[in-house]
């Protein structure tokens, strides 16, 4: 039990349970299984994005272009669907992943080959990708009536009582969990964040790994491009405007250190869930939605203050735990 309390994910989970408890005191239906399932579904997209952002932040980089990437990819698949409704949806999802991958790879190449700080690169591509969305769409929207029923319906179809969107999120979470805990790449990502110089001497290609993490975050954004458009059934240049900071906020609340090397899949998921609960609960308990921004802001600051206390211990001994087990 004491060992469990050391993990910040456990604390965050406890905070979420308390939060749900408090809300259900005001509104008893909130903790009902149906509503919790709905909550998970509503947060799925943010979870996937936060996981993509997490691997980037772990390597001491940052990807500010994710929301713009999402917007561009979403527009591409929406226009494809509107022009050629015959293209099967799984193929469109593959296209979304590929487009996202290419945009992520552009970020990654600039960071890897030219050694430009990632914050500068993605600040640039943030505006470029959103501008490119305007160029390909000519500023026009793709509306619900132009999208095929399958395009809109796939993620809403229920499988074992849970919407496909949630299943996709669960699948992505599982993949990221495997990546971070069971692969050499995951280990290198942590190593680079903890100590880039030592990683070089340990034989890790830091630049190439950074390139790969940007490809991963790009693919996550691309996948969410399709999911977002088919969920909110409108594709425009304004889609997810400013959302990049929500993604980072989810990571920060999830205990992922902006200085790199600290963070987990569970943290990113819980961080996203926390933000999702706040935005879902406010209307339910009759607080004006205008409070949402200030509340998430306070939550972010509180999370950083709490996390900073844990991070004072420099470095993390990864193998000790395995030894003891």
């Amino acid at each position, binding site marked *: 039990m004491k060992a469990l309390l050391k993990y910040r994910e456990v604390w965050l989970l406890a905070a979420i349970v308390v939060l749900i408890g408090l809300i259900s005191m005001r509104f008893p239906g909130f903790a009902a299984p149906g509503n919790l399932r709905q909550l998970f579904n509503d947060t799925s997209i943010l979870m996937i994005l936060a996981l993509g952002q997490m691997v980037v932040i772990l390597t001491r980089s940052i990807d500010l272009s994710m929301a713009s990437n999402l917007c561009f990819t979403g527009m591409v698949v929406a226009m494809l669907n509107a022009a050629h409704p015959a293209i099967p949806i799984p193929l469109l999802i593959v296209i979304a992943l590929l487009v996202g991958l290419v945009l992520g790879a552009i970020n990654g190449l600039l960071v890897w080959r030219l050694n430009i700080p990632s914050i500068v690169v993605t*600040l640039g591509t943030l505006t470029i990708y959103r501008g490119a969305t305007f160029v390909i769409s000519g500023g026009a929207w793709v509306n619900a009536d132009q999208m095929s029923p399958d395009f809109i319906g796939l993620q809403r179809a229920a499988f074992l009582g849970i919407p496909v969107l949630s299943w996709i999120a669960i699948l992505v979470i599982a993949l990221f969990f495997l990546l971070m805990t069971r692969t050499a790449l995951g280990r290198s990502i942590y190593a680079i964040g903890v100590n880039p110089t030592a990683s070089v001497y340990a034989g890790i290609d830091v630049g190439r790994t950074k390139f790969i993490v940007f490809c991963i975050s790009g693919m996550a954004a691309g996948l969410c491009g399709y999911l977002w458009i088919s969920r909110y059934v409108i594709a425009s240049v304004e889609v997810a405007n400013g959302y990049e900071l929500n993604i980072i906020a989810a990571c920060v609340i999830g205990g992922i250190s902006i200085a790199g090397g600290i963070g987990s899949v569970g943290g990113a998921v819980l961080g996203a869930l926390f933000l999702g609960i706040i935005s879902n609960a406010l209307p339910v308990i009759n607080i004006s939605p205008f409070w949402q921004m200030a509340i998430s802001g306070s939550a972010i*600051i509180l999370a950083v203050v709490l996390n900073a206390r844990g991070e004072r211990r420099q470095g993390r001994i990864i193998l000790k735990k395995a030894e003891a087990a």
Partner: protein
Amino acid sequence: MTDTPAPRHIPDRLDKPFNSAIFSWEALLVAVAVAIFAVNSFASPYFLDAWSLSDLTFNFTEKALIALAMALLIISGEIDLSVAAIIALASTVMGMAVQAGAGTPVLVAIGILVGLGCGAFNGLLVTRLGLPSIVVTIGTMSLFRGIAFIILGDQAYKGYPPSFAFFGQGYVWWVVSFELALFLVAAAIYWFLLHRTSFGRRVFAIGNNPVAAQFSGVRVGRIKFILFCLTGLMAGIASVLITSRLGSTRPSIAQGYELEVITMVVLGGVSILGGAGSILGVVLAAFIMGLVTFGLGLLNVPGIVMSIFIGLLLIIVIALPILWRRVRRERFT
């Protein structure tokens, strides 16, 4: 962000002064500015007109004022993403004061003080609690704008006194607007502060190596705190200008300005890793961004397409010297 530094190439002798002036960042920016100016003059017959050029300055002076302080902050190794939110909060509080019947001098004081207060709040969180500024200011960005949303909701404040309009709309002399004059004066002050005072040297020292600076007797925490206050102060001043120019306040005012301000600073040659940069570069970058947006505007290019040019400009201008250095190194080694 703390990306891995590239292994440093140490030349046998320093560049000749002429060479280093020719290949300096500022020279590159001047060349870019002249090129854009020339292209614009050819592209649109309306460009070369004193009043057009004066209008041009309105679309960057407010952001550029913040960029001056932000440059110092980034040189010291910190960053402030909350500046646009500070503008929104300061503007909202000014709007409340108008409803309470405040006059122009009180409004200006309120705007500036709210900005200063927000900056001090950021500074306290970063220096007292030792938190990373990028995360703190993402949080305060939501908090400050969130408070503006709580106060205003979907409403707007109007009814600013007529004398208040001078700050954002008035002219000091012929085509020189108050905003432009204020920016030039502020740029001179910040140039002096950064390049001619011991305070400026300390800012560079902190950015290059905060630990070494601390052991050399530099009060790292206090200087960073002052820099956050200055950035908040400039955001407060910008808030007065924008509110005066628009004549109304909505909580969504100045949305997305923070990234434009940072783009301006980075384009101006300030290293995002801290420790290097100049005010001249930032001023040039501000004019370049103004020229690009205004020139494309005259050609009826929509704003969002202009942002592609700004983004490309940012990446190309940063990438060029890196590629150039790489080519030179390969030739000499």
